[in-house]
């Protein structure tokens, strides 16, 4: 696993998200009202909606396509819906953000 630098926390609006392109697809990186950051797959478990485009409230995001609410901490759908997206480890160093990338070497090992 390697930590990849993706930018500054200030690049993301509070209660908002940005995308990062990676070999495993789009990752959505969120920043809450209280400056917590999370990274999850940008792909709703329901119909693949881009979660990065949703409204962020508390530590959850509402998918823009059909209003599923996904926990940013666990990646699981909240409420009556069932499903989950992958969460990606994210590290904050000062204002710098890093996400964990799984490399070919890790997969082989």
């Amino acid at each position, binding site marked *: 696993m390697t930590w990849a630098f993706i930018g500054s926390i200030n*690049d993301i609006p509070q209660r908002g998200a940005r995308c990062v392109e*990676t070999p495993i697809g789009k990752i959505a990186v969120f920043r809450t009202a209280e*400056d917590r950051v999370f990274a999850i797959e940008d792909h709703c478990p329901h119909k693949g909606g881009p979660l990065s485009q*949703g*409204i962020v409230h*508390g530590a959850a995001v*509402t998918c823009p*396509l059909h209003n599923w609410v996904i926990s940013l901490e666990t990646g699981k759908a909240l409420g009556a819906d069932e499903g989950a997206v992958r969460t990606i480890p994210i590290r904050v160093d000062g204002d710098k953000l890093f996400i964990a990338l799984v490399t070919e070497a890790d997969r082989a090992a």
Partner: protein
Amino acid sequence: MTEKLVIIGNGMAPGRMLEHLFETAANRYEITIFNAEPRVNYDRIMLSPVLSGEKSYEQIIIHGDGWYIKNGITLYKGHKIVAIDRDAKTVASDHGVVAPYDKLIIATGSVPFILPVPGNNLAGVLSYRDLDDVNAMLLAAQSRAKAVVIGGGLLGLEAAAGLEARGMDVTVLHLMPTLMERQLDPAAGHLLQRAIEDRGIKVITKANTKAILGDKRVEGIELADGRVIPATLVVMAAGIKPNAWLAKDAGLTTNRGIVVDADMRTSDPDIFALGECAEVDGQVYGLVAPLYEMARVAAAHLSGADTSAAFVHNDTPTKLKVTGIDLFSLGDFADGDDRQEIVLRDAAAGIYKRVVLKDNRIIGTVLYGETGDGGWFNDLKKKQVNITEMRDTLIFGQAYQGGTPLDPTAAVAALPDDAEICGCNGICKGAIVNAIKQKGLTSLEEVRAHTKASASCGSCTGLVEQVLSLTLGGSYAPAAVQPMCGCTALGHDDVRRLIKAKELKSIYAVMQELEWKTSCGCSKCRPALNYYLVCDWPGEYADDYQSRFINERVHANIQKDGTYSVVPRMWGGMTSANELRAIADVVDKFNIPAVKVTGGQRIDMLGIKKDDLPAVWADLGKAGFVSGHAYAKGLRTVKTCVGSDWCRFGTQDSTGFGVRIEKFMWGSWTPAKVKMAVSGCPRNCAEATCKDVGVICVDSGYEIHFAGAAGLDIKGTEVLGLVKTEDEALEVIVALVQMYREQARYLERIYKWAKRITFDEVRRQVLNDAEKRKGYFDRFVYSQKFAQVDPWSERVSGLHKHEFKPMATVGMAEAAE
């Protein structure tokens, strides 16, 4: 022989260390202190009261000259140490004094962070660290001129309050959206901002300082957005940096600060560091409690009294020292799935309390307005007490624990008859009970009508209902109001009424004053509140884009695959060869996969990648197109037929009138989408009789229709009335839409709203009552001043760039290999 202890710095941490040392090993060391400031040890935490005039310098001295003499300490005032010679074990001051040491303590504190902007060295730019800074500020304050404080943290706000108390006109600039964001959640930050503003201090958040202006002296500040704020005094309070240079020059290990172990020793075992310059376990500190803890540990090792003493990190509560503002913040108060929060808001008293729990234990607390229980919460957190048993009453504080759980009705039942229930109208409990009994009242509305209780601001509605149910027993059934969402018990109508009545002008203000149950709302209430505020406070409320649905945030329609569709405005459905050519060129250039004619007489381009949107808009903009708002809860299309221009049956210029309406009303936000149409004769080719607002032109004038639908429901329109001229028709239509904007619930289409309040009521207000109509019309025109800005051209010029670009692309090279 006594050992020589030399201390560099004479702040609060070494002062406290010496007190501990004298308790256990009074005569072990011969002590010499070098203080760069020409003073004894004083209480730096109390600089703010000195600035505001509540205290004098003499009152904040901790150790007077006599204390140094009594303890045999040699104090060099105004001596700055310039070098440490670790081989010779000596230090040298800038006045040429060289002192040998056996043990050395570095307590050089911190230096203010000075923004690296042009003009930061002009006369009149100060920091806020020591008494010299305070004296300089007091001198500047005599002019009673304008001051700017950069930084809305603890220090900056204290400086601002002090300068304001000295008669200056103060503006605080803060880079982040809310004040003290590291210690407070946004809700408490909002309350704090209001309290600060109530003192007459201006607060500008999201303020990015670009330059400090002036020739020799400060004349003002320029922000990145171009605003210029005049000022003759600028105080930098944007943060501090540990002062570790001396240690670094001496070859000691440094990082952010001087690196020390838990015993406060640096990488040289004879040299200790403590205070703001020290870094323990990767952390540096600025609050006094951990600094005093460092002092205790260092003293224990220096005296040999406890060689196992170790510094342990503890969350320290934060308090603001501004008279009249009570706030308390502790620990981790971010929310999350594995955490629960308990929120108490008392709008009337300006109280906000939030306790964050994890595994039934407190991990964080924010208190505003009433902080008396801060110590108790801190204690529960420190001891990791399981709070399951007292969970229901925890937030009320220590005084409420131990008894039986509180039933809210029991609390009202226990109130004496002369207890005031409605503060606005001064109505006490006994008056309400008597009215209910004597007049046989059975509903909230009746109580309001007869007693006026809860008839003004409405925040005591819950109490009045409890009095009703206590008095009537089981026979009282409160009217079921559908709450807006799970975050509040209030319905849309109450929220709209209270936003106006209490003049609430931000989402955080609404959530606080109306006692929201969550700290950040949800995807249901936030867009609704944003609309209500946009509608009610044009020009004052700053649109909160993060509370808008994605389509209204990026001004395009999201599609099932995450691409977007773009619909430019075609006024009244009219277009031209040039426009069509421009659309064709855009379709080619961006490989747009689908182009479709819409039901609203315009052209939809589908399947556009989000990153391409600004470039697509730039090209469309060059051809004269603006956004069609096909994504908006706002004015969509005005469909027309060709009318008297071409049609042999046309009675009026329906195309021209449709274009006029669209040009007058585009850009306005509405509770739900609004579609219109103008037909030139009763054959109704523009299908005006199933629209939100429709016009049928006839020989004698304009028949105005409203409340149609052709979607989930199908409904023909109601006739509003007939007017003779186009001008009159425009005024009536605009007034109707404004009435709808001001009264409807978010996402409620015109046909549902009009049916709810009755069609006759709409007719009465916008057709028959000329004064009301004029009022609605004027308010619409005013709000359009702020709404009619083409969102596409704004984004082509760079607004919200972050929306359209990925933050980063990582790991692609490895993947390609």
